[in-house]
């Protein structure tokens, strides 16, 4: 099944976010691990870049970042649990 462009971009964000999540948990108990800190920093940059690219096209993924010039896009479909957000 072909994924729509929004879902494809979102999937990349989800992958980067997943990496950040796991490295975060490791860093909580290994706060001085240089390798993990570098890895976290690398994925922070990837994540920020992907989110910026996505949000310019499809609206904010977090209400704090809504561009009000475009109206209240926060409530726009699809919401995360809907098929359209994932396919």
């Amino acid at each position, binding site marked *: 099944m072909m994924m729509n462009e929004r879902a494809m971009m*979102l999937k990349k964000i989800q992958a980067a976010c997943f990496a950040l999540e796991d490295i975060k948990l490791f860093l909580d108990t290994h706060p001085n691990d240089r390798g993990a800190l570098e890895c976290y920093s690398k994925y922070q940059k990837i994540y920020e870049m992907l989110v910026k690219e996505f949000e310019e096209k499809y609206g904010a993924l977090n209400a704090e970042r809504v561009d009000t010039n475009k109206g209240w896009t926060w409530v726009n479909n699809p919401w995360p*649990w809907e098929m359209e957000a*994932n396919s």
Partner: protein
Amino acid sequence: MWTYDKKLQYPVKIARTNPATAKIIMAQLGGPDGELAASQRYLSQRYAMPIKEVKGILTDIGTEEMAHMEIVSAIIHQLTRDMTPEEIKKAGFSEYFVNHTAGIWPSDATGVPFTSAYFQSKGDPITDLNEDLAADGTTA
């Protein structure tokens, strides 16, 4: 506080309606070792934790469990989409349906409602961590 990111932690895309599977997966939402219990376990226990690293990890894991709750809810939502009366009966989903239709309501696989009796919070970090091992000793 918490903020909401408008995305699932992992994508959920279920092509075919299957209420029989939804019924089983319900255990992972509102059952004894489900995601709701897990999230409330870690987030309640963290107040008794004196070590900063572990305050951090309890907060972060508890938060992630809420993201898992959303994934499991999305799975059940998509598995119960556009069910026919025949599908409901055949899947043994009638008992759930009569109370909640296709609404998401945290319970175990047999319909027992979620209860905080599923987890402990004793104000003692070692006791709480042992309880975590019993409840969440897998990687879920």
